[in-house]
């Protein structure tokens, strides 16, 4: 063990280095405040549970991961900033958004994603809206990067022949965060203009015959990318690309996303450019062949089809010829990243997942602040009570308790801050409760140690020896106590649901810190203190004075009490 009698100083220096290291790490990462959970600063947490729509019940981890990405982009589209989407368990997605209390968010996040292929009837360049600082917290890429040409991508039957690359970047560029829509914009019934008078829709087999009415085209002219429209499968649709640089008048859905079986990004042989390969099921293949045959006959922009996810055109490639066989290849100026992203989005259309909103928890900023305040007050009161009790009962040794708790406090704080900045650990109310409960656990280790020292002194050992022998025995008990506590924390963490996980986490963390502090700080400190006259000599206020311990005099110590004065009194008492 590092805490041998010989080198308590070295151990303490080692601990000091550890503490300094942690503080340096905090300084390097530039974070001094722990990341707070939403229940402490206000915000909304939404838990979604995925169910497999194909009925097998199990949710594929890759599908869930993909769904997470899509939901993240939906949340980002609200321009709220600092949002976080994580997966939990094998079928949950947890969305946390600070300081936003919009019902819109719940609606948007919970909705099932739909991917559809639609024919383009009209396409028009639009001026992207300048990003407004108020609407977004992170700057988006400069508008000048946006593609300007029309059909930048081409869909074709996969072949070895390299296709002529289009001149501009594909629309699905990875780094470009979509510009924020104004979340408050009310849905305008612009799209109603395209619904035929009888309200009848066109199912996929009639979708190619669909033609926009004049009213519909007039409405399209007025449509801007900031307008919200509701997507209906068998009706026409106004949509924009992700960068909001081009708007489309689209026909009813030709192919549903679930008719797509795979989408893979790759570089074909004898080629240097990235492409995305699609594969349809038999139904989809037939529909795709028919659609491409008709579309390819038309002129720009009607020779294009749009792949629409959640009402946004992900890609709108042009078609030059009929594509039979259910396999297609989309080429363009893809990078590896953008191709992979498009493939992923397309795959999502094939995801057999539906989402239920399982839990919504919404805390206003005021309530959050109040909870934080209550947590801090509880901590201060708890600390004060424990320290007060220790001073009352252990006298001078209370200093050891305070110092040890102080070190444990610094370590805990640093760990929470660093875990916040490195792995995104957010301290919530339950977590604070865990830390406060742990004050007791940490102080308890000192109780065990001190009581053991006292026992040893009562057994007739000198203080300096008592510290060492007491430590050897206390060590075992402290370790078993901490093991029990750590075990509870672990099991709780694995099994706990939602926010109470925070309790288990901080409880486990502080238990570990307790071991470090007791071994590397309290024990060496006691060894050093036992050498001092105040403690080792059993001063009245040291908590180790003979009277306090209930023994006559400290054995082995050069007692300040005159030894001769006692015997008379003793013999008298015995008699």
């Amino acid at each position, binding site marked *: 063990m590092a805490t041998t009698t010989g080198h308590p100083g070295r151990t303490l220096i080692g601990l000091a280095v550890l503490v300094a290291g942690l503080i340096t790490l905090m300084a390097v990462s530039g974070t001094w405040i722990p990341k707070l959970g939403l229940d402490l600063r206000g915000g909304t947490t939404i838990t979604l549970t995925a169910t497999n729509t194909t009925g097998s019940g199990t949710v594929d981890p890759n599908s869930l991961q993909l769904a997470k990405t899509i939901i993240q982009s939906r949340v980002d589209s609200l321009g709220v900033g600092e949002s976080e989407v994580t997966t939990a368990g094998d079928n949950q997605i947890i969305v946390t958004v600070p300081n936003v209390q919009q019902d819109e968010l719940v609606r948007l996040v919970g909705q099932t994603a739909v991917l559809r292929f639609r024919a383009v009837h009209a396409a028009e360049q639009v001026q992207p809206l300048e990003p407004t600082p108020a609407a977004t917290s992170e700057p988006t890429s400069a508008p000048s990067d946006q593609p300007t040409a029309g059909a930048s991508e081409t869909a074709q039957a996969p072949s070895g022949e390299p296709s002529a690359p289009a001149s501009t970047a594909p629309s699905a560029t990875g780094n470009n965060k979509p510009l924020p829509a104004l979340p408050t914009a009310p849905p305008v019934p612009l799209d109603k203009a395209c619904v035929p008078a009888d309200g009848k829709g066109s199912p996929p087999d009639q979708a190619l015959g669909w033609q926009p009415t004049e009213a519909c085209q007039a409405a399209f002219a007025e449509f801007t990318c900031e307008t919200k429209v509701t997507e209906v499968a068998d009706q026409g649709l106004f949509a924009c690309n992700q960068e909001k640089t081009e708007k489309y008048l689209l026909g009813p859905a030709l192919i549903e996303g679930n008719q797509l079986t795979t989408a893979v990004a790759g570089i074909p042989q004898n080629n240097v450019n990235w492409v995305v390969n699609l594969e349809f099921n038999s139904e989809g293949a037939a529909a795709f062949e028919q659609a491409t045959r008709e579309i390819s006959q038309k002129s720009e922009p009607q020779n294009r089809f749009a792949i629409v996810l959640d009402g946004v055109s992900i890609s709108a490639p042009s078609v030059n010829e009929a594509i039979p066989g259910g396999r297609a290849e989309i080429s363009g100026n893809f990078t590896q990243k953008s191709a992979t992203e498009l493939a992923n989005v397309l795959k999502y259309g094939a995801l057999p997942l539906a989402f239920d909103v399982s*839990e919504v928890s919404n805390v206003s900023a005021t*309530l959050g602040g109040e909870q934080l305040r209550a947590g801090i007050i509880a901590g201060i009161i708890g600390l004060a009570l424990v320290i007060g009790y220790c001073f009352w009962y252990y006298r001078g040794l209370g200093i050891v308790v305070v110092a040890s708790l102080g070190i444990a406090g610094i370590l805990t704080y640093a760990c929470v801050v660093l875990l916040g900045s490195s792995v995104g650990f957010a301290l919530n109310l339950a977590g604070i409760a865990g830390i406060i409960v742990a004050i007791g656990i940490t102080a308890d280790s000192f109780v065990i140690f001190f009581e053991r020292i006292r026992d040893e002194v009562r057994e007739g050992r000198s203080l300096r020896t008592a510290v060492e022998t007491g430590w050897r025995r206390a060590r075992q008990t402290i370790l078993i106590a901490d093991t029990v506590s750590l075990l509870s924390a672990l*099991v709780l963490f694995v099994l706990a649901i939602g926010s109470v996980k925070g309790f288990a986490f901080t409880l486990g963390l502080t238990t570990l810190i307790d071991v470090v502090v007791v071994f590397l700080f309290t024990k060496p400190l006691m060894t050093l203190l036992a050498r001092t006259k105040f403690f080792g000599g059993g001063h009245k206020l040291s908590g180790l004075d003979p009277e306090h311990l209930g023994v006559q005099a400290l054995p082995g110590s050069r007692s300040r009490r005159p030894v001769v004065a006692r015997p008379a009194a003793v013999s008298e008492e015995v008699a």
Partner: protein
Amino acid sequence: MSKLGTIGHRLYTGEISYDFIGHRRRWYILSAILIAIALISLVWRGLDFGIEFKGGADFKAPTQVTAQTVDSMRDALRDSGVPELDEAIVNTIGDNQVRVQTRTLDPTEEVPKVRAAIADEVGINPDQVAYSLIGASWGGQITERALIALAVFLALVALVIGIYFRDAKMSAAALIALVHDVMLTIGIYALVGFTVTPATLIGLLTILGYSLYDTVVVFDKVRENVRDIRSSTTRTYSEAANLAVNQVLVRSINTTVIGVLPVVALLFAGAVILGEGPLKDLALALFVGMVSGAYSSIFIATPLLAQMKEREPDMKKLAARVHARRAKESQKERVVETPASVPTTQAAADVGVTDAGATDDAEPSNADLEKASATAGNGAKRLTVTYKSDVRSQRDGAAKRSQPQNKPRSQRKK
């Protein structure tokens, strides 16, 4: 001056002691009554599960609470246009918050309406109405997870106990103490009607750890005291265990007080400052469980252990030997000239039987302590006194060195 320190010393040496094991019956009865109350309230009143388990929605809005707040809020809910809100529970938290709990609502259709209605009623922006919503099926899943957690935890704790003590009887006694604590805590919830939330459950599971730890502290000392017990005739198992309890009493009290103090602070902050929420739920379960855990490890677990151990043939023989020796010694003291002619084995066996049965409700007084050494037949009286002498003689390492003179405090002060 903290008297606890000196008391601790005297407890340690056996100078003063409480016969926990001898008086076990009265503590068993106390616990039995408490558990009976817990069970009756559990059956009678049941547990009030929070919406996290049942599914439902919970809205909180800041407002100045008046006598009419609840009624007018009910009216507002009725007029909100959302069906089936008659079952909604409206209550106030402190004097500045109103809380509405309803069935599960549709997150996109009904929640905005209810929020708007509540916000309208108290005159704030709907965004300031905090809410949480738990889907009905999700609540079922949470309940399931909670039950699994409880089962896994109990199994693990049993395993840890088994591994640590490597003794079936110790494990059994520790487990009974655990169950005792959990039942008492659940009983309190049923009796008072507090809402059970996931935080409560976390608290409950944490208690399992605490209770186990308390028992570990006591049993550790018991083990230490009985290590060489078979080869000596100084003490019976019960006596050794009782001494252990007395020796760790102060430590156990300190451990519990120090553990409970922060929990009290949490309870205060949760109940007084916030009114409702995870702090209060967690702290309450912890508070009840920790106090119960300290109690059970001393008053229930150790007596149970001793009782079970005394049934072992080894320990019966030991008890017989101890009593035989004592009988002999007291006889020597009484009639110095007469050689020991009593059939010792027989006498000891008799004593052993009396010891187990008759001492249950006897309480030693100070007067008993003084004259106890004279009477060999009375188990209870002898029990209390023997610790003193036995502890001395047993501590080999220390005994060889110069012993500190242990004087009662009152005498030393002069």
